[in-house]
């Protein structure tokens, strides 16, 4: 019997476009896991997080990026995401380490990421995002979860004019369309 | 005063000088046989049927504001009897039959207009549920038919048959459903109740009930104490407020329901159409406005106004179902306070206080029920026995588990 090989697919197949001078790219990652903080174990988790990722565990709606480019962000009182774009030892080393303190759920296939960038990115986001995007309220490194165009979206600010948006993978087609139309409409 | 085409002509010729007020403006007497609290549609209908069918005329209807200022004055005017459950359907069919003779009975043209009610469905399981409902309608003596897409294309060609996100698969059609000029219902009942001797007392708010030894014998109002043998409460969105005065908690939450009307347009919508894949229903008034609505705002409210998310949701549904209304403009929005009951069905019952009766929990469906609600409440007030078509609308169904949950949403009022 020939060995079966299953081909992996990204939700947007590496989408990349420039619309109205806005750069829109699929934000690809090797893995995305969520961490739940066990009841009354915040302290232990903080220590573990620092040990595992080399950065302090972020506060709610904040994020960290460690030396290996791994992004961690917290969107609930006892709930975080860690996204590994491409670091090779993540699954084998970091995840088992995190497991010592957190409850881990693999969500790699559950989300699709889109990076949007450009001078008019705020004008574009204004068309779908109900959040106040002023840097006074939404600073670089902040991350929030909200609803855009009927879709659940996690929005992360990388720089003043660069954001990464995550939305459930099953509706990634509607999601990218929504971003494209917003870019076209400004 | 008797109205007719001849009378209109005659008055026209002599300069319209002979018209009289539709109802008197009496001061309350000290004593009545029955006091109805609430001068809305249901309260006025109750007074009328008490006088007409049960020959009790020593009645006061006390209303805290102006007559008809509650939901009878702010609804989307639909009448229908297209219910599923055996506890509901015969009652609403009874109501529809009363509507059909109402204008002649009241000598007032409330424009009962039976241009049909159409419920669109979009999936096989919705169709199954509608077939079950349509059969319940027919089995209760109402009318119903199941329309396929071809029939719909003839009846309502402007629906989005090509490009809709949730394809249209058919509709349940009740030709006898329709609309009624809502304010005129209150005025008609008021006129005829008044002419039979009922005192309609506006701007008279009930501030408390007179209770002794577990019996109610009247009310305190902003116009003084009024005594009576029986008191019937019928105050829709204010139910919890009024019953709360004597510490009774009801299986009811008050929620705001918004309604909308467009600018006047030449008529295009034949009857009432409801969307099955979102919250939207529409009819077109005899003045040309598209009258439409959708879901309740979803939070407890007494504010008679709503918020933007529901307006957007309703308009999204409207444009999804019939994109030709897109360029019509929304002219006015308003809100009414719904007495949302815990299972989505009403209560017409005695209370634990003797001689105190309650009618409420109509959710957003009270308008169509107006005649039967009045009739059945009058029956209960006059005879102390529930009317046969309203025999399940009792408080004790929550204890017994005999829920009347048309939508199957359970004890959460904002889902009904």
């Amino acid at each position, binding site marked *: 019997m020939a*060995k*079966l090989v299953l081909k*992996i*697919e*990204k939700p947007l197949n590496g989408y990349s476009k420039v619309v109205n001078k806005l750069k829109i790219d699929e934000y690809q990652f090797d893995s995305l896991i969520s961490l*739940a903080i*066990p009841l009354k174990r915040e302290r232990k988790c903080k220590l573990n997080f620092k040990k595992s990722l080399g950065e302090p565990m972020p506060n709610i709606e904040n994020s960290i990026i460690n030396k290996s480019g791994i992004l961690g962000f917290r969107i609930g009182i006892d709930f975080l995401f860690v996204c590994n774009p491409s670091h090779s030892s993540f699954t084998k080393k970091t995840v088992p380490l995190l497991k010592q303190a957190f*409850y881990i759920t*693999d*969500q790699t296939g*559950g989300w699709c990421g889109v990076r949007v960038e450009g001078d008019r990115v705020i004008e574009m986001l204004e068309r779908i995002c109900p959040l106040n995007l002023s840097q006074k309220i939404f600073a670089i490194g902040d991350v929030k979860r909200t609803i855009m*165009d*009927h879709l659940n979206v996690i929005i992360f600010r990388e720089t003043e004019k660069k954001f990464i948006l995550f939305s*459930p993978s*099953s*509706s990634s087609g509607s*999601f990218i369309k929504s971003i494209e139309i917003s870019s076209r409409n400004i | 005063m008797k109205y007719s085409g001849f*009378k209109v002509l005659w008055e026209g010729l002599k300069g319209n000088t002979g*018209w009289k007020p539709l109802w008197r403006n009496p001061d309350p007497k000290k004593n009545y046989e029955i006091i109805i609290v609430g001068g809305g549609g249901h309260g006025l209908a109750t007074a009328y049927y008490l006088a007409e069918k049960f020959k009790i005329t020593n009645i006061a209807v006390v209303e805290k504001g102006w007559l008809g200022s509650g939901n009878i004055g702010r609804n989307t005017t639909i009448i229908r009897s297209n219910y599923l459950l*055996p506890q509901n359907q015969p009652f609403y069919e009874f109501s529809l039959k009363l509507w059909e003779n109402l*204008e*002649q009975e009241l000598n*007032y*043209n409330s424009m009962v*207009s039976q241009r049909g009610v159409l419920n669109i469905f979009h*999936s096989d399981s919705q169709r199954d549920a509608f*077939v079950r409902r349509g059969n*319940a309608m*027919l*089995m209760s003596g109402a009318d119903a038919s199941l329309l396929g897409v071809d029939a719909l294309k003839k009846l309502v060609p402007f629906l*989005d048959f090509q490009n*809709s*996100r949730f394809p249209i698969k058919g509709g349940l059609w009740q030709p006898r459903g329709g609309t009624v000029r809502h304010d005129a219902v209150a005025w008609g009942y008021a006129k005829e109740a008044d002419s039979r001797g009922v005192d309609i007392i506006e701007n008279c708010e009930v501030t408390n009930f007179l209770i002794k030894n577990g019996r109610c014998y009247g009310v305190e109002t902003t116009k003084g104490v009024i005594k009576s043998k029986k008191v019937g409460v019928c105050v829709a969105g204010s139910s919890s407020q009024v019953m709360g005065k004597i510490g009774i908690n009801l299986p009811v939450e008050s929620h705001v329901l918004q309604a909308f009307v467009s*600018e*006047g*347009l*030449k*008529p295009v919508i034949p009857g009432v159409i409801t969307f099955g894949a979102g919250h939207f229903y529409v009819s077109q008034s005899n*003045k040309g406005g598209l009258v439409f609505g959708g879901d309740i705002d979803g939070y407890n409210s007494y504010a008679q*106004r709503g918020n*933007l998310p529901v307006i957007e949701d*309703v308009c*999204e549904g409207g*444009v999804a179902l019939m994109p*030709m209304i*897109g*360029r*019509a*403009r*929304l*002219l006015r*929005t*308003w809100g009414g306070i719904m007495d949302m009951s815990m299972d989505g069905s009403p209560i017409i019952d005695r209370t634990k206080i003797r001689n105190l009766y309650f009618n409420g929990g109509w959710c957003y469906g009270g308008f169509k029920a107006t005649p039967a609600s009045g009739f059945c409440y009058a029956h209960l007030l006059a005879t102390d026995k529930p009317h046969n078509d309203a025999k399940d609308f009792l408080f004790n169904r929550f204890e*017994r*588990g005999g829920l009347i*949950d048309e939508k*199957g*949403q*359970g*004890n959460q009022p904002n889902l009904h």
Partner: protein
Amino acid sequence: MRNSSHPITNKQKLSFTFNGKKYFGYKGDTLASALIANNVKIVGRSFKYHRPRGIFSAGSEEPNALVELGDGPYKEPNTRATNIELFDGLESSSQNFLGSVNFDFMAINDLLKNFIGAGFYYKTFMWPRRFWEKLYEPIIRRAAGLGKLSLQADPSQYDKGYLHCDFLIIGSGISGLMSALLLAETGGEVLIVEEDFILGGRLNAETSVINGNQSSVWIGQAVKKLKSLKNVRILKRTTVFAAFDHGIFAAIEKKTDHIVEKSSKPRQINWKIYTKLCILASGAIERSIVFPQNDRPGIMLAGSVRTYANRFGAYYGQKIAIYTNNDDGWRTADDLKNMGLEINAVIDTRKEIEALSSSIPSYLGQTITKTYGRKGIKAIKLSSGSKLNVDCLAVSGGWSSNIHLTCHKRGKPVWDDNFKNFLSGGNGQKDKIIPVGAARGVFEIQNIISDTNRVILSLIKKICLSMPNRITLSCSKEQYRCALDLVSSSDPSNSFIDLQNDVTQKDIELSFKEGFKSVEHLKRYSTLGMATDQGKTSNILGLASMAKLKGTNISEVGTTIFRPPYVPVAISAFAGRSRGKDFRPTRLTPSHNAASKRNAVFVETGNWLRAQWFPEKGEKFWRQSVDREVIQTRNSVGICDVTTLGKIDIQGKDCSEFLNFVYTNAFAKLPINRVRYGLMLREDGVAYDDGTTARLGENHFIMTTTTANAPLVLRNLEFVRQCLLPNLDVHLISTTDSWAQYSVAGPNSRRLLQKFVDKPTDITNENFPFMACRELTICGGIMARLFRISFSGELAYEIAVPTQYGNALFDALLSEGQEFNAVPYGTEALGVMRIEKGHPAGNEINGQTTAQNLGLSRMISKKADSIGNILSERESFNGPNIATLSGFKPVQHSQKLEAGSHLISEGKKPTMENDEGWLSSVAFSPTLGHYIGLGFIERGGDRIGERVFAVNLLQNKITEVEIVSPHFIDPEGIKQRG
């Protein structure tokens, strides 16, 4: 007519059509100003009496000049000519007439006025009863409405957007601009929203002098300053139309309405504005005066006549008269005179006042008792008896503060007797709207300047921001005094109050006579203020009229309150992009592409698209495909994408206690690597959802829910976790989108899967029996989960892999399955097989049925508390006659069953009293060769073998059916355990 020296004549010339005739205007015109410049007087017909009507105002308050714009699907009815920015090629036409707008046959109604006054229809058309729908109503409906819809889908794009600011300033007149300048200095985010296509508000219509120059110079400076500030944003052509709770406002921006070519950009944007404070600088709206035949074309609001002259250089005729009850009317006279026009007369209702202009013939203390000229005013008659020839009559009944938005949250206006005006009463809420300038009842420019400084600076002080300096402006001095002489009519049936709805003074009198005296009754009975202008210019006249009849004042009469929106807004603009296929997002399963390649027909299941069946060549009818899929699955193996079922990852030390509580049956003792079926109730004891839950570890479970309930179940589990059992260590995460899950069903399913499962995992019956589960790897290391569960009743598995392998696994299962003749099957075959097996689904667990109805009452454990446990014990849930889930088959095997049929015993009439139950799900069973159904019937379990009738009156079918076990195939479960 156009003043040829007006600066607008230096601008670009534009051509447009009105009622098919070509005209010219200039850039900067509105359609109304261009029509006036072209001396077009009759613009439309009134609603009821079809009287000829002309342009009445210069803004959003316009009652008369409603036109249809555009053509075909772009047709836009009821558009106010006064708000339309002129562009080259604009096409417009009048509406609401039979014949032409100049010769309208429906004008016969005007002669019948005495018979068709307020509420006449309530008193007649009642006999004979059947004539209403057949005769009377169609006639009424033929006369209904104003403009026409195209009946075609709106082709334009719309968008929505969200804006956040600290200070929202509505209006860019002098008080708006001053407020913006002051507030911008605090560093807060300022958003200025202006309805017009130029900034400056009322100043653009006046000849006021500011700092020694025309006001336009100051506007230019102010705007330049504001535009240079980073924290200021200005939206033109944008109308704030509604105020909602907590500082949320809605505004509509016209993006391309004024542009010739239909652009690919959205036509309008519906902005949702979040602000900490709102400054209402919306100015004031002028009102008319009620007098006989006050509705003729050429009779206009005086302030509007001034607007057209000053801003657009446009005016009607040469003989102009002013009719006023206040000082402002005289300003119009002055301005027009200064333009070189002839002012015939100023008629002021006030007797005690001195003439405010010596060079204009004035008639003090007089009223107009008659006007002449059906298609355009020709003359007026005064109470003194003198008759004056005029071709334009400018009327001013004083100004009403534009406080529409302050009413949206039920704020009641309060009467200001000084300026005879309703002011914002607020609504006692923190997020109140702060009016400034004329919206605050301050009318003279010098006072507006000082008052705006005062209001805004004290506001800034209150919120403790750094204080800017007050703005000092010198300006021309104004005086405004107003009398309340609004109703002076000797001919009530020809004296119009609501111009659009044709409500006359007579109608108010009739309402009064019939007892409709409260303002709400008056409005509803007479239709006052219910037209497209919502009574912006007329409500106050109706109130004044009612006050007069009642012998009281306006504040006693009270007022109805304005409801949103401030101006009518296209329904499409509320829908935005959520229309057509984009009405709701579309969710695709992980094997959507692989299924598409196999020609799957997809069906909408909530927001999901699922493969419904997979037609093969030669199959013409869906049943052929579905029957084949069922048979092939039952004979060998079938593959179905079941990803849409909700999957919830549950972790924590207290998971099992938690599951015991949310399910009716116990889960604590479920061994690791085993699956159990669970039933959930609502707290009211009614069945809610069902599914299997697998235990992957001591503290780790995977719950599955039905597709429809997935988000709701998670919501309710979070409720239990946070609100009822917050001391448990439980964590819930939806992983529905993370895993692609496939049912692999049929006698060859194990053999097929064995080709995928990596060693050393053994999935033989001994080591992986029915209801086993395992985390494992497949295809050389791909993480996967395998569950031995069966919805079809066959030997079956569900296999899950990370979503990104979905298409690949589906393809591989089918290609590796070729040797077994493996078949993909869709939701139809899935449904058929679950009915054959007797599994309840959404049609059975519909929120109305109980565990008892479903025959699952034994699943309610009485050993531990669980949601719904207690209330499921209520008597009506447990009577001997409750309906229970049963199977049904037609006695004549060839007969079809229909879901939704009701069940009636033999010999009984099909009535609600005799109703014993219903068929919930039916299917043709290719396995059995006839139709089968699941349904509920009273005492079903005791009646196996009994025959009843499935009654489907809706489709005129009555079918005799036999009550059978709901498990049509393999009731002992041998196959699934094999």
